[in-house]
């Protein structure tokens, strides 16, 4: 699971959960494909995704993967983010090149744990947990 997906996932489908975002990420193992970055870095893609991404959640996710592979990222979106090539490059690495293969996602409201195995987050819930 890439951090891009983590940024979009929410547990709002669970019963009595209002926002369910952001899911707390706990990483036990992750693969980092940094070698592909230099050739495939796509500023347009990054800009487009940055309009959708919740930046504070991405910063938290970056902290979670820092135990495996630290990637620097400023705590706040710089004012000139659309032109800032180094910032876009950092964000691209974070969103696209870190693949969390094992870990957990925790719902911020109910503390329900969703496991990540083989890079696939398991969001299945029992019928009585869903409304």
């Amino acid at each position: 699971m890439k951090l891009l997906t983590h940024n979009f996932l929410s547990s709002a489908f669970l019963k009595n959960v209002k926002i369910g975002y952001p899911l707390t990420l706990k990483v036990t193992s992750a693969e980092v494909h940094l070698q592909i970055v230099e050739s495939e870095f796509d500023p347009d893609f990054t800009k487009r995704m940055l309009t959708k991404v919740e930046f504070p959640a991405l910063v938290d996710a970056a902290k979670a993967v820092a135990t495996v592979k630290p990637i620097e990222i400023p705590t706040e979106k710089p004012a000139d983010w659309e032109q800032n090539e180094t910032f876009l490059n950092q964000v691209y690495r974070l969103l696209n090149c870190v693949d969390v293969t094992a870990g957990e996602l925790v719902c911020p409201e109910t503390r329900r744990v969703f496991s990540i195995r083989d890079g696939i987050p398991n969001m299945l819930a029992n019928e009585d947990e869903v409304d």
Partner: protein
Amino acid sequence: MSRPEHSGPPELFYNETESRKYSSNSHIIQIQYEMSQRALELLALPEGEKCLLLDVGCGSGLSGEILGDNGHTWVGMDISQDMLNVAKEDNDCDGELVLQDMGAGCPFRPGVFDGAISISALQWLCHANSKKENPKQRLLQFFQTLYGCLSRGSRAVFQFYPENTDQSEFIMAQANQAGFNGGLVVDFPNSAKAKKVYLVLMTGGMQRLPSAILHEGQNHDAVTNSERTRWNKGGPRNAKPQKGSRAWIEAKKGRMERQGKEVRPTTKYTGRRRKHAI
């Protein structure tokens, strides 16, 4: 045609062997590609723009491959772990995968996707696989959460196989209740095999429903079923020549000759009637 959704829940039906069979069958692959292509067309995404799409019931990522080939980023959602494993093993699969039951809802935050497609998945939701499951409620929950995670003005296209008109009306009613408008687009309505039903749902505002393909062109996506072909068994072409005719005599002489028997040569008198009785 037997319907797999009658046989049990999808996560059990698409087990390891079935997933592999499904993803290596060239007939299925071909049809899935064509339907995904058409669904993408029906999404009517802005020209030249690369979008973030959701693939509901992505399975082994056959439909997602089309999305990826067209430059879009996609996230796939499926209930079968085995299908997702097949997708994961496939190195070409560039999408992200999430294990989730569509009837429980889409696990995404509001407004992130520019569109959603679903190929041959929706009919699975119309069946209850346990006493607790209520198809109506599950469909509604699915459409409501899907509506939430789509951005305004975007579309969702579902290709599915309705059993009858009641079923498609049932699905439409839930979609309307969730706030979608739109309707069915039926391609090749007059063909039993090539007929494909697409449910095109739109968020916000009245938009024009795309038009269906009414006449079968060369690119129709049904393969003739060889089991159903009736071979021409006794037509005039294969009929035996009439007994006593020249053709019959020649055939018989040829047969005897091949058996190594002594046969009189064929001349202009062969097979002629004698003028008078001797």
